[in-house]
């Protein structure tokens, strides 16, 4: 066990935990946009930056990545940190000038308007936090989408911006997206997963018994092949299946 202090609170932590984890465990709010507890930390949004004090010197680090160490002193709300967070929000607000999530978060941090000239404001939804890409890679293990291009031209997309053969339509990307840049809709037996520049459509399987559409055929086929299940295994939805072997 390690003892650290966050905003003056003495806290216990385990070796290898990050500052952000400890803060969350103890109800200390640190804003983030690219962190998800079930995915590997990425450190891209920099909103979670905190000030640490070690040996009389202070340093600013990304709390989602910084491993705690004995005696570490952390401040999550120093004026320094608040100024930086505000600037990051201003930058994001300039990129996503119409996005409600970003607008709301910015306003929570006291940023109502970006200081940048109106002609430069963009109307993006994606903040390139990479959560979708990580979810697809680490949870779904499909890597159907990735971060393509570099720098200011970066975007999240499937290869060649075409419907990816690797995508099984699980919707993890849409679920994990903090700003609604990726969306998923089920309608009339069809599922669409889409973002500004790409989309993929899936036919949903109809349960033989109850007649409900319940999952994309591609997804079921993927599971079936992966586990070598009989062809009729998914003819009925789990709800209509009565016996458990």
């Amino acid at each position, binding site marked *: 066990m390690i003892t650290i202090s966050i905003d003056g609170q003495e806290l216990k932590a385990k070796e290898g935990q990050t500052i952000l984890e400890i803060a969350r465990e103890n109800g200390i709010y640190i804003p983030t946009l690219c962190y998800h507890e079930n995915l590997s930390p990425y450190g891209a949004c920099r909103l979670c930056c905190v000030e640490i004090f070690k040996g009389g010197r202070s340093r600013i680090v990304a709390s989602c990545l910084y491993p705690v160490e004995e005696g570490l002193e952390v401040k999550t709300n120093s004026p320094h940190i608040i100024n930086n967070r505000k600037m990051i929000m201003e930058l994001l607000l300039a990129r996503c000038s119409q996005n409600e999530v970003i607008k709301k978060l910015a306003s929570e941090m006291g940023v109502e308007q970006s200081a940048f000239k109106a002609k430069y404001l963009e109307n993006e939804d994606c903040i390139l936090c990479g959560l979708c890409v990580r979810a697809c890679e680490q*949870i779904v293990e499909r890597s159907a989408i990735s971060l393509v291009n570099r720098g200011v031209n970066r975007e999240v997309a499937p290869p060649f911006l075409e419907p990816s053969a690797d995508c099984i339509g699980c919707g993890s990307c849409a679920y994990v997206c903090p700003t609604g840049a990726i969306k998923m809709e089920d309608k009339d037996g069809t599922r669409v997963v889409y973002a500004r520049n790409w989309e993929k459509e899936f036919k949903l399987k109809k349960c033989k018994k109850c007649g409900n559409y319940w999952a994309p055929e591609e997804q079921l086929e993927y*599971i079936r092949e*992966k*586990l070598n*299940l009989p062809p009729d295994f*998914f003819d009925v939805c*789990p709800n209509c299946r009565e016996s*458990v*072997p």
Partner: protein
Amino acid sequence: MDKLTEIRWHGRGGQGAVTSAELTALAAIKEGKFAQAFPSFGPERRGAPVLAFNRISESEHIRVRSAVTQPDIVVVLDPGLLYIVDVTSGLKDGGALIINSSKKLVDIKLEFGGPWQLAVVNATTIALELLKVPIVNTTMLGALLKVSDAIKLDFLLEPIEERFGKLAQRNIEACKRAYEETSVAEPSPTSKKVERAYAKESWPSWQELAPGFVVTEPGNARSYRTGDWRAQCPEWNHDRCIKCGICSLFCPEDCIRPNERGYPEADLYYCKGCGICARECWTQAITMGEEVKE
């Protein structure tokens, strides 16, 4: 003073220990004896360990109403309880311990033998075969009949009929069959109870309670084991598992988490064995196996 037989029933919420005790008392009263039946009242829930009690006197009104702490007979409806509750606590020398278990008498004796009569019956199997449900209340009554003459089958029939209606006959069959299949070992007066460590709850003093009985340590219920309630245990077949996480989302205990290899695993400290995960798994990768303790 009249002979007083005291019985303590150990079961799980929903398993029928209270019903067993009630039927026992009714049978004794029918026979002309004086009897009591009462549960240990508490907020415990389906699956949680519960207690029920009987007192049977040949000819006198019984005035004692407190819990039975020094029973003549202990009946254990769920074999898993043996390891989490000290069932023989206070059991009188020369008394009887009746256990529902699929294990053999000799094996049980090694662990739970003592200066008391030991009876074992595989009541769950009997109940499943005859009643189609793992509720062993009437089945265990058969075992009780075999060990003790505190009640008699003839007087038990009517209460069973009243209680179960259409299902009475099958319950009586279960009772009779258990009577036949119960194996009994005589007390070995010299043998000692095998001591084992049971979780003991320690209670704070009044000074230790915060003003307003506020609990200041958030989520300290994490230290409370509910895994004891489990009669069945989920098992994951990794060949069938795609690590999709549905099982974890539907777990009311929120105790299913991926292991290092990403496969879901139930934290058995909390898992109550409800079986939702097995039922909801798309690929039928989970089965509910019999709970094996130790």
